[in-house]
């Protein structure tokens, strides 16, 4: 539903978004993951036509955002929950949106109720809202027209665990109805809970993409034994690759079943046998986050590549 092709944005010699391509399919929640400053927001602004791309293109349902008549009816957008006039009340902000899109006034009350803002809170000026309340208001605004596509930049930011759980249910329900959800986050664990598909971006480039199941899959089998030398010899015989983990453990590039069979056939007793915890995505993401925290722009490690 959302299709991004070779999209780039440069500011002078700095490439904020560097030749990214991906699609967000209907019926799924696509998570856009990357550290702060990776280019997520710039990419999202290009998708909804607020930032002109330097090259490449982004379409929704095959159309450029600017060519869609009354786009708010089809695409709910939340780019920054704080980008609202602090002097307006929550209800007024939704009313302005409903008027622009030509929706009945009753939608305003319905959406306030859906996101859990009380009538009293809705009468208060946004200046007095917490970040969590602003996020809820922003979600209400994005959902006003019951659009089939949602583009949400860091919507979970500022929500408490109950709020994250609520958001997950909301977006899941939307995807189950055949809707397309594209949301960004800089926290792996946040997005892990919500998304079906993941696109990981760092320094403007996509470094990994695929289904969450694929990306979060363990990268081998952890096996522990007191007879480490025997096991190593057996693995070498089968030319399986492995690395060491602790004093008596190995991480083997094979399924737990295969490793178990090999050990059993040779009578090597095992103390532990399971899929390893570590996965490429988490490792990759930690490295990226560490990089951006140091403010370094060094190249990413040769981990998972899209």
């Amino acid at each position: 539903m959302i299709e991004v092709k070779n999209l780039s944005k440069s500011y002078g010699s700095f490439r904020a978004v560097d030749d990214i391509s991906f699609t967000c399919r209907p019926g799924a929640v696509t998570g856009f993951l990357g550290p702060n400053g990776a280019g997520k927001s710039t990419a999202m602004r290009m998708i909804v036509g607020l930032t002109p791309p330097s090259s490449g293109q982004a379409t929704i349902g095959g159309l450029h955002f600017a060519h869609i008549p009354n786009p708010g009816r089809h695409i709910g957008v939340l780019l920054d929950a704080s980008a609202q006039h602090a002097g307006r009340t929550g209800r007024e902000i939704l009313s302005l949106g409903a008027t622009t899109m030509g929706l009945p006034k009753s939608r305003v009350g319905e959406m306030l109720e859906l996101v859990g803002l009380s009538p009293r809170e809705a009468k208060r000026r946004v200046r007095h809202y917490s970040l969590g309340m602003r996020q809820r208001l922003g979600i209400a605004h994005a959902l006003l027209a019951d659009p089939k596509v949602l583009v949400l930049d860091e919507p979970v930011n500022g929500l408490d665990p109950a709020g994250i759980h609520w958001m997950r249910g909301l977006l899941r329900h939307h995807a189950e109805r055949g809707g397309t959800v594209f949301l960004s986050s800089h926290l792996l664990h946040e997005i892990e809970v919500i998304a079906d598909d993941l696109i990981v971006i760092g320094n403007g480039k996509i470094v990994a993409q695929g289904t969450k199941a694929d990306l979060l899959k363990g990268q081998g089998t952890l096996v522990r034994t007191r007879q480490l030398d025997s096991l190593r010899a057996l693995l070498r015989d089968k030319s399986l690759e492995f690395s060491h983990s602790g004093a008596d453990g190995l991480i083997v590039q094979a399924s737990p079943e295969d490793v178990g069979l090999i050990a059993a056939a040779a009578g090597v007793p095992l103390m532990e046998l399971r899929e390893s915890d570590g996965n490429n995505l988490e490792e990759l993401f930690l490295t990226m986050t560490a990089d951006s925290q140091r403010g370094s722009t060094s190249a990413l490690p040769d981990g998972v590549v899209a």
Partner: protein
Amino acid sequence: MSTFFEPTIDMTVPRVPLYRLIDVEMRKLIDTRAGLWLMILIGSVIVLVEALLVLTAVAYDEVAPWSFMFGVMATPLGLLLAVLGVMTVTSEWGQRTSLVTFALEPRRLRVVLAKLLAGLLATIVLLLFTIVFTAGLNVGHAALVGQSAMWDVTRTDLIAFGISHTTAFLLGFAFGMLIPNTPTALVAYFVFRFVVPNLLVAAGLIWEWFEPVVSWIHLEQALAEFFDGGIAQQETFHLLSALGLWVFLPLVLGSFLLVRREIK
């Protein structure tokens, strides 16, 4: 809420009609404290200044001519309408609400047009209010003094009043379009209003060749001469030229930049 979504965009949904955009922009003029207070301020200035003028006249047992009531309003109302013009545009950028506005209507110039028309409507309402209010005062205070009211304002005067104040709003709007920051745009406008005219006259005195140019670019002078000169052809061209330079040019340039600008 539980219908299944088709994975295509329904192109039969009509685009947002202009009247709805105008409706929204008119609401935005008064739905914040800043906007509401600006309107209240303009209304209060009209009421207080006129009341003061009339009370003074009554105290001296005289009748203030209706034309005085327009004359005394010229500077304060002009300034306030220019501020209204600036803020009609710039309030959209200051709080980054443009992220939302242009995600709902990506054709940015339609939003600009809606703002322009909403502001113009507000200006017309304020001008009509001034006319009706001063007419009422004129009748009332003349009766109080026991003399007949002086209806010395001609139709041309009323047109001049309308055009010059509408121009003030348009000037503010154009400056706001070109300079997307409220304080900077306001300062630029005040410089234009109070410094530029004197500079132009001074330049005309220093360089003889520049003197004839001044009448083509000095907006206030052009406005004054346009109405004094009985709306003659030469004065009309002077006014159009000055309006082109100070209203049309910044408006077009600002629109050009807005369409290309990244909305953040």
